[in-house]
């Protein structure tokens, strides 16, 4: 921390905030061109500044670089500053956020060109950037939490962007409320940290842990409980089981929002937080097991739900949940660098998938149901090619980026000492399912014949996809999304270059993005892991010479399991995951290209299971019945009628009517009758005299 640099990190979040303020306050009067100039300019400046900061600090700079702007809270012995920190982990995050964010801003210029509320969209988008940058650059948990909550707010605003639609407004509410449940647990975790370490600043807490010579806990001690609380917070933000239910509904928002927030950046905040807190998790093996199990279960659970969806964005939403499960699994086997690696590559190809889906939707005039698409590959070739790249990347085909990151996760899972092979097997199965439903999407969208309106979209599909809340009819999830994206251009047409440009850039990144992490057994040097090693090495068993140790050690970033791997074993594991991908491709080709009548036959034979999966295992309905309805009843009957109307209004009105009543009684003293006045005088005089006599006699 002996830096003579002054990177002025605080400028990075501030720039999009200024953009948000300008667009938000004055954007209504601006023309569209002015609005997007403002938004793009500030985002680009933030990206540039971040790049410069990374460029300055990285080669040989002393990390972590911390700058403290001002004290924020100083209460007794506890203090939390406004401070920013730049180390390797936040370098990656800040570049991903600003870079991908900038590309999506450019894309949105084209996508939202005909939408109402243009200035509002860009204001919210910039606001989101501000909060997300605060989150990744903060140097203490409290400021991170500010960003955490802020991205939740931005997410709510953007999901409910088409606020005139009931389903969109409800989806925004649902996202925010489910997130709050996770945030509550996160707060508990932070309180535990304060109580134990007296500070929330990363450097303070982690150095105390390092010096404390703790040993890994066996049972359910402090670190385990704290870790689980932090995990629950991450489940809320990163859409893991059981708090994932908001993410599919969040597809009500415009597609660039889904790309930025619910694929590339916001949902990764939970992963970032777990990776940042690795020092705590490394001391709590039981918590790590819980993390791994949740991640693994979510991955396969969401993948099964993605199989039956017919809305192109919903498939991608469940795919996001599933891939986040992979990242959480990686953290759960203490392979934090693998998790962050997958975070980065996933940002590239998932953003590409969403933006490409947006391009497809734009091309077909607002239709989102895949059964009404088909044969689009000649009509929108650029979109087709970038989507192809992205699909192969997410399915884990080498040498695209998804392969390297996914393989690293699965390899680390296999070597985990807590049921490693089981985790690995489920992971490979999920990879196969991922490949299957992604290629299903690919085939259904781009191959075959273009048949808009030819397929009778049944009631089931509508009901299954409607956000589960009471009083919602079957026809709510209307196809065509007239206010999402229909403009009568007539015919299928390619998107403008302002939308295709970012797609191409992201496609390139999806291809080469994994090459920084080619593992040793394949001949690479795994630069990514080396890069992150200084951060991840600050665990309990490490003393002074961290940097030197990291340089020599390529694979000891895993604190969970044994670190010898034989190259042959590694090749076999890699081959297994690729094989799963190939299987998925084969079955998708079979069912959706070669013999398209098969899917219907299969679903009619397994009708019960099919319905169960289609309706997302009725989880939304059961949450509604178990949690929402009783709470609503409690609120209405007890709190509203009982407490608010009965007690509080009763007290207030009662005070009023009591005064009235007393006044009414006392008024009758003023009768105008002289004799009664006289008698009151007599009584008063008698009372005074008796009192004085008594007092005197006493």
């Amino acid at each position, binding site marked *: 921390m002996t830096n003579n640099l002054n990177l002025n990190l605080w400028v990075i979040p501030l720039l999009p905030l200024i953009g948000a303020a300008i667009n938000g306050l004055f954007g209504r009067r601006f023309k569209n061109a002015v609005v997007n100039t403002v938004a793009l300019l500030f985002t680009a400046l933030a990206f540039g500044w971040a790049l410069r900061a990374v460029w300055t600090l990285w080669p040989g700079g002393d990390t972590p670089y911390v700058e403290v702007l001002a004290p924020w809270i100083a209460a007794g012995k506890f203090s939390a500053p406004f401070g920013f920190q730049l180390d390797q982990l936040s370098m990656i995050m800040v570049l991903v956020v600003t870079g991908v964010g900038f590309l999506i801003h450019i894309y949105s210029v084209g996508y939202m060109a005909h939408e109402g509320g243009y200035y509002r969209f860009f204001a919210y988008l910039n606001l989101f950037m501000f909060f997300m940058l605060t989150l990744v650059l903060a140097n203490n948990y409290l400021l991170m939490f500010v960003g955490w909550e802020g991205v939740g707010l931005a997410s709510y605003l953007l999901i409910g962007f088409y606020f005139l639609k009931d389903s969109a407004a409800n989806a925004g509410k649902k996202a925010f409320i489910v997130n709050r449940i996770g945030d509550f647990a996160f707060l508990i975790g932070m309180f535990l940290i304060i109580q134990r370490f007296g500070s929330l600043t990363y450097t303070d807490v982690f150095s105390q842990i390092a010096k404390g010579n703790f040993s890994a806990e066996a049972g359910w001690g402090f670190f385990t409980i704290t870790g689980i609380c932090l995990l629950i917070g991450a489940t809320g933000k990163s859409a893991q089981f059981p708090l994932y239910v908001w993410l599919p509904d969040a597809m009500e928002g415009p597609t660039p929002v889904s790309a930025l927030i619910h694929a590339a950046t916001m949902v990764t905040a939970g992963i970032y937080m777990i990776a940042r807190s690795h020092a705590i998790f490394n001391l709590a093996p039981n918590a790590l097991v819980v993390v791994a199990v949740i991640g693994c279960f979510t991955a396969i659970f969401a993948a099964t739900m993605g199989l039956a969806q017919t809305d192109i964005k919903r498939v991608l939403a469940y795919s996001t949940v599933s891939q986040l499960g992979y990242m959480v699994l990686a953290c759960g086997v203490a392979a934090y660098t693998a998790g962050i690696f997958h975070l980065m590559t996933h940002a590239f190809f998932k953003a590409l998938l969403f933006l490409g889906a947006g391009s497809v939707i734009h091309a077909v005039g607002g239709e989102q149901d895949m059964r009404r698409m088909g044969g689009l590959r000649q009509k929108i070739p650029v979109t087709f090619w970038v989507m192809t790249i992205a699909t192969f990347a997410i399915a884990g085909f080498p040498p695209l980026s998804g392969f390297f990151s996914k393989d690293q996760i699965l390899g680390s899972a296999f070597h985990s000492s807590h049921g490693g092979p089981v985790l690995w097997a489920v992971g490979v199965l999920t990879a196969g399912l991922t490949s299957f439903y992604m290629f299903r999407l690919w085939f259904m969208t781009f191959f075959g014949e273009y048949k808009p309106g030819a397929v009778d979209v049944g009631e089931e599909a509508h009901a299954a996809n409607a956000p589960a809340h009471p009083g919602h009819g079957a026809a709510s999830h209307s196809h065509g999304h007239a206010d999402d994206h229909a403009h009568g251009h007539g015919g299928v047409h390619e998107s403008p270059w302002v939308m295709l440009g970012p797609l191409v850039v992201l496609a390139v990144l999806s291809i080469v993005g994994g090459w920084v992490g080619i593992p040793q057994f394949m001949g690479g040097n795994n630069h990514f892991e080396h890069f992150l090693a200084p951060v991840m090495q600050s665990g309990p068993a490490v003393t002074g010479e961290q940097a030197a140790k990291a340089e020599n050690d390529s694979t000891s970033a895993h604190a969970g399991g044994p670190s010898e791997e034989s190259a042959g074993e590694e090749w076999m594991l890699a081959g297994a995951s690729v094989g799963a991908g190939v299987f998925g491709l084969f079955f998708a080709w079979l069912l959706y290209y070669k013999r398209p009548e098969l899917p219907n036959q299969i679903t009619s034979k397994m009708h019960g299971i099919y319905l169960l999966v289609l309706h997302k295992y009725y989880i939304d309905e059961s949450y509604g019945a178990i949690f929402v309805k009783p709470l609503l009843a409690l609120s209405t009957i007890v709190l509203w009628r009982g407490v608010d109307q009965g007690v509080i209004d009763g007290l207030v009105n009662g005070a009023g009517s009591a005064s009235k009543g007393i006044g009414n009684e006392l008024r009758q003293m003023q009768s105008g*009758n002289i*004799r*009664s006045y*006289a*008698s*009151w005088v007599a009584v008063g005089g008698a009372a005074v*005299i*008796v009192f004085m006599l008594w007092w005197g*006699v006493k």
Partner: protein
Amino acid sequence: MFIHQFLFVVFGLICVAGAINLLVQRHPINSALSLVVVMASLALIYLLLGAEFVAAIQLIVYAGAIMVLFVFVIMLLNAGAEERSRGSQIALFIGVPGVVVLATTVAWLMGQSANRLGDVSISPSDFGETHAIARLLFRDFLLPFEITSVLILIAIMGAVVLGKKESQ
């Protein structure tokens, strides 16, 4: 001596009887005349207490002027017998018990300290004689005396103004 107590009891009883009669009578003129009786007996009791001057002015001013004024007004207004009308409930239910409480309290307290309070007696001195009072009145209490004369002047003016008929 015994004669003193006898006289006191007799005239005290006459006082109380006159007061009760004042309450009981329905026609105000009867009440006025009872009040005259009360004042007369009080004058005699003052004499028992050696207050010659006070007894004299009681008879001259109170019984001889004020009560005459009352009688004249009764005659002027031709006030008839009191009619029965709905009275004040409060007076009956609260005032009366209040006064009863007060009276009994005072009486009981006085009775308690009967011995402590000691006796009064007529002493052969110039106590209560006119010149003693005059000496006090025109020397030590001169200011209140003058103020009361102003008070009487104001009262005269007020009575004249209030009693005048509305003139056109």
